[in-house]
Each structure stands twice: as structure tokens, then as C-alpha cells.
């Protein structure tokens, strides 16, 4: 799950640095696209705690993400932004409570049934907003974006500056989330999740009440999805029921698959690649989903460990052992996706 040795940590640091300087070189359109990619990365990363770390495949994860976004909407009076110090903890709390409820019930099932029950709960929450006037119904609703404010002091941002500020807030939160999860996985708690993924039955025989551990992981994952959902509301100033829908949940799973199931940084790479892929596909074809699907399929077949496992590809090993060959070229292009 975690990078081994100094090489991996250096690579992660370089990746973070690259993301940090990106806004200096691209137009504001790409800064906003980048923010969206970072939000998706948070969503995928939070889901990885369940999928890659614990072996729980949920199809309802976006419900907590959307719920957090709607929480921001519901506590924001018309046209007046609330402080992020109020909206963020509140969004996390609501997402975590919902995850506690959904997890407590769905974790009584396993495997395929767990997938279906989480899907059902996700769709229930989707229709809660889709079919009621609670949050503007099917069309969604606009809200004043939360303020980057501490107590009474507010960051003095112009309209032009705001997207940049939001980008860095998202990047900071993603970094925090990664470091927090890395520490969690190194802890005794993280080792239990690993054991559950490998052989849950044996963990029970060893004396672990696996249900409680899985529920704890589910709540943490929901809470972190809440951070991502909050960032969405902050970024777009708009909520709609699709945020909670199964399509978004499936997208997060695809990002994990694309980036790699076996690493913690995989979902981040996957989310960035998926967002870039969507953008490229949209610019060259009207059948965006078809192109996306084919590329994801190709990557998953060619790279069982996702894009984060690209260094273990045969051609890379061979080039490392012998002289560089021309074959490395196309593979690198694929990594950029």
C-alpha cells in the first residue's frame, strides 16, 4: 500500500511539487479542471480505504460525498457564504453519521450482497434529493461558495484569484488526507484492515471483531468523502442529485482501478488520469464514454496493478537491465493517458 524506500517518497514529493506549481503554467480553465481532478482524487482516495485496504467494494460511496455537498448548501443562507471553518466540519460530520448508519446495516452482508446493499443505500439518498424539494429537486441548486475565512478575517480574494485559492485548498486537503491515511495504514489498526482483506474468517478466529473494524473504516472513508464533497460545493457553488448517484460511485471505482488497487497513491494517479482522459476524449470525439471505457479496459488488461504499477512493466525492467530501447516511448505516452 505504501511506497517503500526513499525512492518512492521522493517520487511522491515530486508529484506533489508538480501539482503545486501547475497553476503557474496553465490557464484558469485548467486550474479549475485541476481542482476538479483533486476533488475526484480525494473521493477515490477515501474509497481506497475500503476497496484496496480492507477489501470492501462499495457502490454507494458517492452518497457521502454528495451529502456533504448538500450539507454546505443547506447551512448556507441565500447569497451569503459561510466560513469554511463551519461548513467543512459540518459536512464531514453529516457524511460520517450517514456512513455510520449505512455501514452498520450494509456490513452485515458480504461480497456481492454488500455491493448491492451499498448501491441501494446510495440510490435511496440520491432519490431523497432527487424527488424532494430539500435541495432544489432534480435540477439541483446554486449556493454561495463557502468563504476562506478564519473567524472574522477573510482572505481578500478577487474573482480571478479565487479559483487558484480553491485549487491550493484542495491540494492541501488531499495531501493531508494522503498523509493521514498513510499513518493510519502503518498503525495497528491498519494492520487489522490488511488482515481482513486477506482473510477475514481467520481474523475472526484470531479474536478480532471484524465487524467493528470494518465499520470504523467505513465511517472514516465516509468522513473523508465528505471532505471531497465539501470541496465540490466550494469549487462549483452548485449541487445536484447526480453528486450522490451510483454513476459517481462507479467513477471513483474506475479511478482506483485505473491508478492501482494495491497502492495508496494509485487512486490519486487514477483520478488525475481519468479526468485528463475525459478532457481529451471530449475534445476529439462525441463518444467520450466509449473512449474512456476502452482506455480503462486497455490499462486494466495491460497493467493489473494500474498506472502506479507501470514501473514493473517488462519493457521497463528490460530497459533498466540493458540499454534503453525505443519501446519505452509509447509506454510512457500511455502513462500520461
Amino acid at each position: 500500500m505504501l511506497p517503500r524506500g526513499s525512492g518512492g517518497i521522493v517520487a511522491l514529493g515530486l508529484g506533489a511539487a508538480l501539482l503545486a506549481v501547475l497553476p503557474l503554467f496553465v490557464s484558469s480553465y485548467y486550474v479549475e479542471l485541476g481542482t476538479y481532478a483533486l476533488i475526484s482524487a480525494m473521493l477515490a482516495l477515501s474509497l481506497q480505504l475500503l476497496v484496496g485496504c480492507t477489501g470492501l467494494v462499495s457502490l454507494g460511496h458517492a452518497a457521502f460525498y454528495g451529502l456533504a455537498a448538500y450539507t454546505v448548501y443547506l447551512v448556507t443562507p441565500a447569497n451569503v457564504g459561510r466560513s469554511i471553518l463551519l461548513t467543512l466540519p459540518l459536512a464531514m460530520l453529516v457524511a460520517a453519521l450517514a456512513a455510520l448508519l449505512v455501514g452498520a446495516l450494509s456490513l452485515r452482508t458480504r461480497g456481492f450482497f454488500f455491493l448491492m446493499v451499498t448501491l441501494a443505500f446510495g440510490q435511496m439518498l440520491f432519490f431523497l434529493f432527487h424527488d424532494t424539494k430539500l435541495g432544489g429537486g432534480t435540477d439541483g441548486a446554486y449556493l454561495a461558495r463557502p468563504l476562506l475565512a478564519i473567524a472574522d478575517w477573510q482572505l481578500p480574494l478577487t474573482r480571478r484569484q479565487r479559483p487558484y485559492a480553491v485549487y491550493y485548498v484542495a491540494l492541501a486537503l488531499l495531501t493531508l488526507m494522503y498523509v493521514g491515511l498513510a499513518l493510519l495504514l502503518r498503525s495497528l489498526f491498519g494492520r487489522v484492515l490488511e488482515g481482513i482483506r486477506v482473510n477475514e474468517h481467520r481474523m475472526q478466529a484470531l479474536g478480532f471483531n471484524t465487524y467493528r473494524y470494518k465499520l470504523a473504516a467505513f465511517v472514516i472513508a465516509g468522513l473523508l468523502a465528505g471532505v471531497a464533497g465539501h470541496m465540490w460545493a466550494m469549487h462549483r457553488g452548485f449541487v445536484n442529485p447526480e453528486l450522490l448517484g451510483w454513476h459517481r460511485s462507479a467513477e471513483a471505482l474506475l479511478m482506483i482501478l485505473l491508478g492501482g488497487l494495491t497502492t495508496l497513491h494509485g487512486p490519486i494517479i487514477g483520478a488525475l488520469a481519468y479526468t485528463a482522459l475525459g478532457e481529451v476524449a471530449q475534445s476529439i470525439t462525441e463518444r467520450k464514454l466509449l473512449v474512456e471505457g476502452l482506455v480503462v479496459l486497455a490499462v486494466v488488461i495491460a497493467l493489473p496493478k494500474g498506472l502506479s504499477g507501470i514501473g514493473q512493466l517488462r519493457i521497463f525492467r528490460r530497459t533498466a537491465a540493458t540499454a534503453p530501447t525505443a519501446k519505452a516511448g509509447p509506454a510512457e505516452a500511455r502513462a500520461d493517458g
Partner: protein
Amino acid sequence: MADAPNTSAPVLATRGLTRRFGGLIAVNDVSIALRQGELHAVIGPNGAGKTTLVNLLSGEIRPTAGRVELMGRDVTGEPAWRLTRLGIGRSFQRINIFAPLTVLENVRLSTQAVTVPASGLLRSASRAGDVIERAERALDRVGLAAAAGRLAGALSHGEQRQLEIAMVLASAPKVLLLDEPLAGAGPEESQRMTLLLKDLAREHALLLIEHDMDFVFAVADRMTVMAEGAILAEGKPEAIRANRAVQQAYLGAASPSSSREEDRGRGERGGGQ
């Protein structure tokens, strides 16, 4: 006269323990008592219900009727994880380990399960020295200390059996339930295991399921013979050897290990319910 009956209170006892699977009575009205310092072997032909009995004692499955008492306390129907924490340790007939994890991690998890309270779970796993030390002692005990850093899946079959025992010992149980710990082991490994089991029997209440009759008669202090889910006979090895009903039902039959696979399949079905 050296074999005066062990009259200490049983550590683990069952009364009228019964388990049905549909129309089949896998375990029928079984009452046994495991005592401290005693190696209690359970033998019986294939399909006699031995593995189901272990599954009932360890909490893998719930009994249909009857009681299980651990040191006088009623623990009937408690889940496996709680029984492990209360002091019942078991090994599995089919090797059941964490193949992609290291040998040490397999054992460390076992120690962690019973020693680390919820409040200590956020400690770094690589710095939890007390947990690691206990796990290393258990590995040392079964002779696997040198393999601590290897992946469990890369061990030989016999070594994996030893690892199973180390995982049981690492939780410091009061009762050991060992389901065919010698299955598939070579002669050298069997010898090592025999010594280990004798040693362990001194400190624990030990229930052993085994097909190798020579081995069972050599190590058992007490034996229970099961047939078709019920107890056919119980007593000291000499008495069992002399028992006519046992001879007819089991010892007189063809080689007991000839159809071991059948029994294995049955045991699994029991465990899955």
C-alpha cells in the same frame, strides 16, 4: 496406579452438545470435559463429527442444543472472536494463514487481537515492541524464529503447520483445539510436533483430532471415540484399545487414513454453516 483420574475442574466442558444440518445430526448429545494438563484426543471414523465438534467449541458454528462452559462460565453461542479472547485457541484442519503476509505478521496479528485495547490501535505497528516480542516468542517455541521475515505462503507445508500452532500460542490460550496438526507433515516434522504437543499439553487443556493411531495412542492422556456424531467410548488409551465397540466401529476397519479426503470435505461443510 500411576494414572489416577484427573479430578481437577474442567477448563472447557460441554453438556449434551448437538448440532444438526438439516436432517443430518453432525454432533449428537456430546458431553466431554477438557482438563488442564491433559491431552485429550478425539478419534473416530470419517464423518464422525470431530471437526464439527471443534467448530462448535471454537464458536465457528452455533450448537442446535446443549451447553459449552469455559471455566464454569456459560459461553454457548458466543462468536469465535469472543471465545478466542476468553482463552480458546484453535488451529485449522486445512491450513488457514495469511499467505501474502510475513510469518511474523501472521503471529503478530494473533497477539495483537488479544492484547491491544481499542485505545492503543493508533500506535505505529512497527514500533509496538511488546506485541512483536510476544509474537517472536511464539515463533521461537515452534521453531520458526529463523523464518520470521519470510512470506507465510512461501513456507513448506510442514512449516505452515508449525505457523498455525504459533498463531494459536501467540494468543496465550487456556484451551488448545488442534484439528489434525500433523496432516501432511513429513516424519521429521511429525517428530518435532509430537514433542511440542506433549510439552503444550502440560500447560494447557488440549484437544487433539488426529488420524494417525500410533501417534494418538502414544501421546493421549484421555480419548473420546466418536461415531456418527455421538460418543462411542471415552477413557484412557488402554481402555479404548480394549473396547470391543471401538474395535468394531473403527480400529478394526481398513486403514483410517484411506478416506481422509471425504472427512475433510465434510468438515468444511460444517465450518461453512
